[in-house]
Structure formats: C-alpha cells, structure tokens
C-alpha cells in the first residue's frame, strides 16, 4: 500500500486510463466468464459506485456506518419520482437523487457524527431502520409501501409532454437524451458514471482533505490536538458518501424503474459493508473488486440448482455423488448467502485488508522469492505500512 508515497499525476493518469479501458471493454473480456450480459455488468457498475462512496467514509475515516442503505433508498425513490413527474430522462433523476440523498446525509450525519465508534454505528443503524419503517407505513403516499413505487401510464412527465414526447402503449423506459437506460447502452451510461465517480474518489484520495480523513482514522485524538476540528471533515466525507449512495440508488431505478422499501433495510446496508471489506477497505480499487466479485459469484451461485449439482458430481459413485451434491447444495442456489457469510468471516479473521491485502501479500511473497533466488541479499527495507 503506497498511499503515503507521493504519486505523480502521470501515474494517476495511467490509473484512470487503465481503469477506463478495463471497464469499457468489459463486454469483451467478460465473455469467457459468461458474465457479459448488460444486466449483470450494470450491477457491477452500480454497486461499484455504492462501494466507492462507502469507502470514502469507512475506508478513509474508519467510521463504520450501518445505515447507508437509507441513502440508496432515498436515491431510488427520488429517481422514480423524477421519472413520474418530470421526464424519463436520466439526467434530472440523477441530479435530484444525488442532491436529495446528500441533504438526507447532511441531516443524519449532523446527528450521528456527534458520537464515534460503536455508538456511531448504532445511530446510523437506528436512522436507517426509522426510514425503512416509515417508508413501509406512514410514508406510503410517497413510497407506495409494500408494492413499491412504480411508473404508470398516467404519470405527469411534465417535461416530456412539453417536448412533445407522448408515451406509447408500452410504459416508457428511462433514457439519456434518447439513449436507452437498459441493455448495452445502459451499461455504458453506468460505466461512464463509474469512471467519473472513481476519478472524483481518486482526487479525494490524493488531496489534503483525503489525507486528513485518513489521519482521523489513524488517531482522531491526536488530530484534534494538532488543532483540527475533525467534525467538518467527517461531515463532508459522510455527505459525499451519501451522495454516492444516492447516485447508485438512482441508477438502480434507471435499470429497473421500481423502488421498494426493502432497499433501505439494514441487511442492505450490511451488503455494502461486505463488499467494501471483501475488496479491501481504504484501498483505491478494493471496493470495485469487491463489488465485482460479490455480484459475479452471486449470479453464478444463485443459478446452481440440485440438477446441475447432480450432473457435476456424476463422475463419483452414486451414493457419494448424492452425498456431496446435497452438502454442496447448502452453499449454492438459495444458500448463496451462507457462502457469502462464511467467506466474509474468513476474510475478516485472516485477511482484514480484504482481497487487496491478499494481492499485496502475494506480490511481496513472489518478489522476496525472486530476489533471494537471485542471491540478491539486499537489506530488507522495513515496510512503511500505515495503519
């Protein structure tokens, strides 16, 4: 982890170019993995954005929020309302979603950030649960309760009507000035937004502001003693991550214009925590990796069923094949969450830095092997790994 080293702008440029190429060519290189269909790739992008935003808060400052799903939900609801009232264009939906979830984050953050540690977690959890419960009950006129908010033929769509776009018989689909929000074009919309989000995150990461956030993580008291009032920085980080979540929520609404309250439940907040930790909290591309890994395997594992398993183990003797298949059946299909939970536990226990730490360790191992093989007995540099 070379966070503390001075990184030249040129290197960042290379990062951005590589990331853009990797993301934009996804439909090609994901082909052999069987994951190159737009729906799934859109999910990679959306949860990537969500996780990047979460990482701004948890990864940089170490504040463990258990309520980020609330912002995701607010983003989704806002986007669908924008579709209903204004226009099927994605742009206003996203702008309103980001703005409103930012405002929401400002409110919640103002209260929650008065405490730290586990109290902060509980406070954010409490607020998220409140929003979830309200969305289900009293706010039904806004959220449409259990059914979820959805588009109808008779929606106002003021701007669209003004521009002379009348809805045809079918429900209109979200679009960006005519570019469809679903399918491959939808994927590219999400991909471009992901790249922009990542760029902003990279700028934050490298800026003095980002350094202050990391200083808060390493020792908040000392940060205070040096004369910094940490709360405004935390506040900013919290609002930024809330806005990222709102953007992700609006994109969820773009891919499927239906917003339900279950997006705000605390298990949904748990998911983004899982993604971030799995990838590597506080690293640059860890959250993206985490989102990709979890969504990819969720897709693969959920598709398995007993029949597939029986076939997979058919080379074994019958009785053994059945036994193995039934044990394996626990972990796939509906049991995907079991696998996820187990993997997550293993990661937290053995590899708290997530996949990124694993890669770093492997890299170091390979390098030390090769250097000792060359007989190159250089004095091992004490690794300046920051905490």
């Amino acid at each position, binding site marked *: 982890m070379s966070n503390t080293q001075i990184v030249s702008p040129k290197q960042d440029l290379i990062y951005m170019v590589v990331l853009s190429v990797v993301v934009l060519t996804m439909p090609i290189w994901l082909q052999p993995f069987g994951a190159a269909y737009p729906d799934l790739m859109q999910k990679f992008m959306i949860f990537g954005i969500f996780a990047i935003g979460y990482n701004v808060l948890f990864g940089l400052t*170490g504040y*463990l929020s258990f309520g980020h799903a609330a912002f995701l939900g607010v983003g989704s609801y806002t986007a669908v309302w924008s579709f209903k009232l204004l226009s099927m264009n994605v742009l206003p939906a996203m702008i309103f979603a980001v703005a409103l979830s930012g405002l929401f984050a400002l409110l919640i953050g103002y*209260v929650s950030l*008065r*405490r*730290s*540690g*586990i*109290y902060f*977690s*509980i*406070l954010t*959890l*409490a*607020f998220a*649960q*409140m929003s979830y*419960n*309200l969305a*289900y*009950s*009293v*706010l039904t006129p806004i959220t449409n309760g259990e059914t979820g908010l959805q588009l109808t033929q008779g929606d106002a769509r003021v701007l669209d009507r003004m521009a002379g776009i009348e809805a045809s018989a079918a429900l209109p689909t979200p679009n960006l000035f005519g570019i469809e929000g679903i399918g491959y074009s939808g994927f590219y919309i999400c991909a471009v937004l992901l790249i922009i989000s990542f760029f902003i995150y990279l700028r934050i990461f490298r800026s003095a502001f980002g350094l202050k956030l990391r200083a808060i993580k390493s020792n908040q008291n000392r940060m205070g003693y040096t004369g910094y009032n940490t709360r405004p920085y935390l506040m900013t980080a919290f609002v930024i991550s809330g806005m990222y979540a709102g953007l992700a929520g609006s994109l969820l609404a773009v891919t499927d214009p239906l917003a339900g309250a279950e997006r705000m439940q*605390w*298990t949904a907040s*748990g998911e983004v*925590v899982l993604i971030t*930790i799995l990838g590597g909290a506080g690293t640059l591309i860890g959250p993206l990796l985490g989102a990709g890994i979890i969504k990819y395997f969720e897709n693969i594992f959920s598709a398995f069923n007993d029949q597939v398993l029986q076939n997979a183990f058919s080379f074994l003797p019958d009785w053994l094949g059945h036994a193995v298949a039934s044990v394996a059946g*626990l972990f796939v299909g*509906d*049991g995907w*969450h*079991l696998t*996820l*939970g*187990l993997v*997550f*536990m293993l990661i*937290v*226990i053995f590899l*708290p830095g997530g996949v990124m730490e694993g890669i770093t360790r492997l890299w170091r191992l390979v390098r030390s092997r090769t250097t000792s093989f060359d007989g190159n007995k250089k004095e091992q540099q004490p690794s300046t790994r920051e905490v």
Partner: protein
Amino acid sequence: MDAIFLQILNGLDKGGAYALIALGLTLVFGTLGVVNFAHGAIFMIGAFCAVTLEKILTLSVRVKDESVTFFDAYKETPYLEVWFGDTGTAIIDWSVPLSIILAIPVMLAIGVIMERALIRHFYKRSHAEQILVTFGLAIVLQELIKSFFGANPIPQGAPEIVAGSANIGAWIGLGESVVYPWWRLIYLLFSTIIIGLVFSFLHFTTYGMVVRAGMADRATVELLGINIERRFTIVFGMAAVVAGLAGVMYTPVLPPDYHLGMDFLVLSFVVVVVGGMGSLPGAVLAGFLLGILQSFSSMTEVKDIFPGIDQIIIYLVAVVILLTRPRGLMGRRGVMES
C-alpha cells in the same frame, strides 16, 4: 384505564424479551469487551430448539384408523401416542416448556464453542472488526437454519391448559373486559425469574463475585491467580443460555422464522445502548421501558396524533438518549465514551 393497563402488560411482555436478549449482550460486552452481533442469532437458535423438539416428539407412524370400518383408512400418529397413549399426547402438548430442558445444554455448548473457536481471537481487535465478524457469523447461522427449516414461520402451540386467556380484570377489580393470554403472563413471569437468577448468580455466589471483579478490573483478578478467561467463557455460555431460553419461550407468542434473530438484534442493541453499554440493571430497565413505550405508541389514540410513531419510537428514544446522555441510562463512567 383498561386499555392503558393492557398496554402496560403488553409492554412488559415485549420488554421481557428485549431485556433477556439485552442482558446477555451487555453481559458479554461487560466481561469480554466484545460487541456481539450474533446474539440475535442465538435467540433465534433457541427458538428453533423448541421447533426441533416438537419435530422429534411428533415423529409419526402410519396407523390403521380403527374408527373407520368401511374401508382401510390410515392416519399419521406420533410414536409417543402409539407407545404411551394419553401420556404421550400430554408430552407433545407440553413440548415448548420441555424444550427448556433441551435448550439449556445445547445453548451452553453453542455459546462455549462460539467463544472458544471464534470470539476469543477477537478480544484484542477493534470493535469494528468484532462487529463485522459476528455479523458474518449471524448470517451463517441464519442461513443454516433457513436451509434446514425453510423460510416460513413455524407456529408453536402453548400447552392446552394455558392456551386461553386469563381474566385479569376480575382479579384486580377492573371488570370482566380485561383479559390477557395466559402464556404471555407466563412469559413475563419467566423472564422476571431468569433475570432474577442471573442477578443472584452474579451477586450472591463466589463465582459471580469473581466475574464481577473481573468486569471491574481484569488485570488485578488475573494477578491474584484466577483463571478469569475460563470464567468469562462460562459467562458467554450463560448469556447464550439466557438468550436461548428467551427464544424458546417466545415461540408461542411469535412463530419463529430464520430472520427472527436479526429483527430482535437491532432492537436489543438499541436497548443495550439506551441502558448503557456494560450495565446489567440498565439493560433490564431499558428493555422494559422501551417495551412499554413501544406498546403505548401503538395505541390508536397516540397514533392519531403522531402517525407512524409506533414504528420509530424505539429508535427515536435511542437517538435522543445517545445525544443527551451518551453513557446511557445507567452506564458506568468511562465505558466506551469518546
């Protein structure tokens, strides 16, 4: 008046469950310093102990139905009825209270194994990591239960004799209209007894005294040559038993399903925080208090004034308490303060 009285009972009842879970949660936090997000899952496993026992007791065999003479009719009859007749039927009827006998060793074992195998390695790590690993464990336990028992709630019946309602109104002179289910009264009594047992264990036995000493100053107790770690393991097991029993007894009130634990976990964490992290009387007090508040806020008269208040009251109270009195109602000075 009647309505208020009933709501107080309702609240005490709900509060009993909150208090029992929160008690274990705060006991674990006070002794081991571990924030255990898997505690709700333990409550859920307790509930499923009752389900399991009922399933075992009602293992059935196909028996020829003698009352039908025109053709051969068969009906499913539990082995217990075949072997013991009416006694067997009675045993099945009492399966929920009997589950307590099963639940105690099972929950103790689960608690001790959990502590030795996993939690022990997390004493020295940050609270965030403890939360994360136990959160993962909670998911694993919940999904295991789901894959064995399915996703639907499984209703459990209280014994026949207490299945009806008690006419409390007549006892205290409020008239015939005030009735309350027997089982809920028993649950209230049960939770009071368990809370009493835990407190007397901690305050009137030498073992409990050492545990309390360890909570106050672990290092000194260790210097005196006491293996405090082993006692804390037992305490963890005890917390698991308390939560498990709460789960067993709660099954006739609320049919258990696999996310029961998660539902109660969030609430009981709020209870612990309101009561004060690491404070046992605080957890009990806050449990009953929040239970009563919740049931009052679900009265229609209150809901007319503040719509939706019943959904958020607990969280609202938690937010207010945390902001005005971060130590909680009865929290000790210096515990988790910042």
